[in-house]
């Protein structure tokens, strides 16, 4: 695709921000921010696809991210055979019973036409079914959680490379989104917002408390990386040679042999950190560009134009024979799937899965601010929003500290107001986020890079 001039400006702003930080705060910091920016951009694209293309609101971002995170655990963690032995059968039985229950309810819905009696019979069957399932289920999970609780206490995973989980995470999130969409997509947009927000809370609370599945609040740590570890790098020959080659000028200037050795080892330690982050950045960038490419293709395709028609005039689109409900479901599932990919990548980057870390303020509303600020309906805008807002989120703290210090220059360092303000520096970022959102909504409601409407 061809970019407009202001879009090139946006891209160059993004790049120069990282170069700037790289020179001011160091390349390591810059790369850490860059990695999170790329992941945020992928989340933003996911939301943008459902909201920007079709006007389907998705406040369940947090839940889909958590599903992606779960996928990372299930794919990469080595299996815990003992847990499978003690609890596998019980879980299997309860799963089969659950499937039977679902089929029974579906059958009843088909056979009994009268609404009131259908509700009652369904209610009774579900109640009895849950009591029976609980019996097997609770036994099995208690057994699983008793297996070596300090280190394991859950089923573990498949022990595959974690990079597969990015795809699986998308599938997990899409699956959950399918169920949510089936239930909730008929609702009006603001209801849908609240319902998806609520369901994402339910998803996270399940992950938090079902310890047999996700280890719950005990967290899963030590997930395998897709990139080399720093300590291994520091002992590989080619890496040492590379660092020596890149810094040959600096090294040649040092005359003393011992000093040179010290400098080299420092450079290797720094370099290994940067190398690891850079490899992550490259991997993430590849995923981001692939999604960006296909998202753009889709937007320009007949399907994308149909989505825009549905968004702009649902009734007319319906009258033209487009199945609005089905298309809404499809786009909701696709958007959620992309968010799920980002969720798996997030856990991959951290190397740990902490269900209690998923909070709506950080993982739903900030992502939405990114979409609105960047420009809904424009994928480049979504990426730009992801980059800029995450950047602001991170750099808000140093900036606020600077501003507060400037404003309170005349005050003593022990002045109560100054101490209090400096203590509450981390909370100013929320203020910035809110103000940015309000200003954008007021003065540039279509976002910084607005949607390009093509007439063809």
């Amino acid at each position, binding site marked *: 695709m061809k970019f407009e001039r202001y879009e090139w400006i946006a891209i160059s702003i993004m790049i120069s921000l990282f170069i700037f930080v790289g020179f001011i705060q160091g390349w390591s910091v810059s790369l850490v921010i860059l990695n999170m920016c790329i992941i945020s951009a992928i989340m933003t694209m996911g939301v943008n696809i459902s909201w920007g293309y079709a006007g389907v609101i998705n406040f369940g971002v947090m839940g889909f991210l958590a599903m992606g995170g779960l996928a990372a655990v299930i794919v990469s963690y080595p299996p815990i055979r003992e847990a499978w032995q003690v609890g596998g059968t019980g879980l299997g039985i309860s799963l089969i019973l659950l499937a039977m229950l679902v089929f029974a309810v579906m059958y009843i819905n088909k056979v009994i036409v009268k609404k009131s009696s259908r509700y009652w019979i369904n209610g009774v069957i579900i109640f009895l079914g849950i009591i029976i399932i609980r019996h097997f289920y609770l036994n099995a999970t208690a057994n699983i959680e008793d297996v070596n609780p300090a280190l394991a206490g859950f089923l573990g995973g498949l022990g595959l490379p974690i990079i597969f989980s990015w795809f699986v995470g998308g599938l997990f999130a899409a699956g959950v989104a399918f169920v949510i969409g089936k239930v909730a997509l008929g609702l009006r947009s603001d209801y849908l917002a609240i*319902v998806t927000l609520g369901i994402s809370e339910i998803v996270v*609370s399940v992950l938090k408390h079902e310890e047999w599945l996700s280890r719950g609040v005990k967290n899963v740590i030590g997930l395998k990386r897709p990139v080399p570890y720093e300590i291994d790098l520091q002992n590989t020959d080619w890496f040492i040679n590379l660092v020596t080659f890149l810094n040959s000028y600096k090294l040649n200037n040092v005359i003393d042999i011992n000093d040179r050795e010290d400098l080299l080892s420092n450079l290797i330690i720094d370099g290994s950190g940067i190398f690891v982050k850079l490899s992550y950045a490259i991997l993430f960038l590849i995923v981001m560009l692939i999604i960006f490419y296909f998202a753009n293709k889709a937007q320009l395709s007949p399907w994308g134009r149909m989505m825009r028609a549905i968004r702009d005039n649902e009734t007319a689109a319906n009258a033209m024979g487009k199945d609005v409900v089905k298309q809404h479901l499809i786009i909701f599932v696709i958007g959620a799937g992309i968010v799920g990919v980002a969720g798996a990548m997030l856990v991959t980057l951290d190397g740990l899965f902490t269900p209690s870390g998923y909070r709506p303020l950080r993982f739903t509303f900030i992502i939405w601010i990114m979409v609105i600020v960047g420009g809904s309906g424009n994928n480049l805008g979504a990426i730009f929003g992801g980059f800029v807002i995450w950047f602001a989120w991170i750099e808000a703290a140093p900036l606020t500290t600077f501003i507060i210090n400037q404003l309170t220059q005349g005050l003593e360092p022990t002045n109560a107001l100054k101490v209090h303000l400096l203590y509450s520096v981390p*909370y100013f970022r929320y203020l910035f986020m809110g103000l940015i959102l309000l200003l954008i909504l007021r003065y540039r409601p279509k976002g910084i890079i607005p949607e390009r409407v093509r007439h063809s």
Partner: protein
Amino acid sequence: MIDFLNSIIVLLNFIIIPGLSYGSQLALGALGVTFVYAILRFANFAHGEIMSFGAMITILITWFFQSQNINLGILPTALLALPIGIFATIVLCLISDKFVFQYYRYQKSVPVVLAMVSIGVMFVVNAIIRIIIGTETIKFSDGQKFIMKAKQFKVMTGLNEGLALKSSQAITIILTIVLLSFTFWFLQKTKTGKSMRAFSDNEDLALLSGINPDRVVLITWMIVGVLACVAGSLYGLDKSYKPIIYLNLVLPVFASAIVGGIGNPFGAVVGGYVIAFSEIMITYAYKKFFVYILPGPLEPSGLVQLLSTDYKFAVSFTILVIVLLIRPSGIFKGRVL
């Protein structure tokens, strides 16, 4: 007979009294959400933070009074500070309307945009609260903590089970009754209330009949401020004040408003109690109750708990989803004031 009484006391102590007080707090919150929805026609995500703001001001004033040795004897000092908190909350609501919401109202923006705007307000108010008071848990109830302690009750009646009644719970219930009856009286009997109902029912018709929309909106924000501040302060008084909790509280509040039929004040109140009671009843372990009421051999071995208390929070949403599936307009048909 004694067993039966004991079982009743168990239910009263662990379900009905906590349910009533939590339900009252939710009902007041949901009433505020419903007012905004009926008059201003958007889902106000900032409502939880407005509640939190009111509670914060109440706490600050309470601290001031405590430092001046002003108190209400056995009643918590917070009651004395509440009017000032209410005033501040109304000011906050009016400022946010003046500088933020008004513009979009005049533009006739779609509800989703206003909901997004309310998220912006939520962030800003949230930041202000955290900057002013931090994120620590604050207990600010003073005065006499219990009206009746479990032990007193046991001695008084000679039963095995105790019945405790916290003064904060009693205050919550009484204040809720007062506020609710005032609100409903206002809506049904006064001219302003009637004009608000007319505005909510059919905006164009109301404008044609000469109702001043700005005045209706002003009154609405004032009522919302009162309800939000009281709900927030009571919640803080009853449990404890923690800024993060109010963001989580906004979800059950919304659930109550929607379950009752959003835009319908009576529905919001009923919805609040429905959500509160179902949260407590579904996650309560009924073992004690059944031990009293059933003869020996039938006594249950397990906890007789439908869902573990971990899922307390999820219950309100499950109910919300079920209600929306079966009766999308809520228990009482929504969108009338």
